[in-house]
């Protein structure tokens, strides 16, 4: 199931929006009987916008379940989508969309992420459009 979700993100989101700004944090954790770091092969998630992180103890998943306001996923095979303005200072901003399993929530994720990707097309990676007031100054 997890691998299906990863593959779906690669082919349906990343490959169809090659020019869009998006950062994906793929947190890989040890949940199933044969899971291990040595079994990791990226599961087709090969886009350069993806950062792969090994989280064997599922620190992030458990943190999201226990502390993230508005997070509706489980501690694995889950996703959380955030807009460009979201910050994680003392508390993490509520996700725009979240759920699990990833492949089972794909319609919901596609609907939520579509407008974000359309809005960010054409901006060069690493740049952020300044606010109008800043430009005027």
């Amino acid at each position: 199931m997890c691998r299906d979700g990863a593959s779906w993100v690669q082919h349906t989101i990343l490959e169809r929006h090659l020019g869009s700004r998006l950062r994906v944090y793929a947190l890989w954790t040890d949940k199933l009987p044969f899971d291990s770091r040595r079994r990791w092969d990226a599961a087709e998630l090969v886009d350069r916008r993806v950062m792969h992180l090994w989280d064997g103890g599922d620190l992030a998943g458990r943190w999201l379940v226990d502390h993230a306001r508005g997070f509706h996923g489980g501690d694995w095979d889950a996703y959380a989508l955030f807009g460009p303005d979201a910050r994680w200072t003392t508390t993490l901003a509520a996700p725009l969309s979240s759920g699990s399993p990833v492949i089972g929530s794909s319609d919901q994720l596609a609907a939520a992420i579509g407008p974000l990707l359309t809005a960010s097309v054409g901006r060069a990676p690493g740049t952020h459009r300044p606010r109008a007031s800043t430009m005027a100054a």
Partner: protein
Amino acid sequence: MTGTGRPPRRLAIAVAALVTLVVVGATWVVDQKFLAHATPPPGVTLTDLRSVDQLRSLFDADTGTPRLILILSPT
């Protein structure tokens, strides 16, 4: 009556050989399918996450970009 012990002995040897073959085959399949070292595509790397704060730093460094957190298992 002189050959009464031979057929069971042959059968036992055949069964032992078959069991050995099955065990070796199953071990090979399990090793290849579930335990072997998987190979990621060239250029794709995996970084250890040491703490939630590390993820928090990465997340805030990418402010200005839509961000998607995925929690997955490798198998």
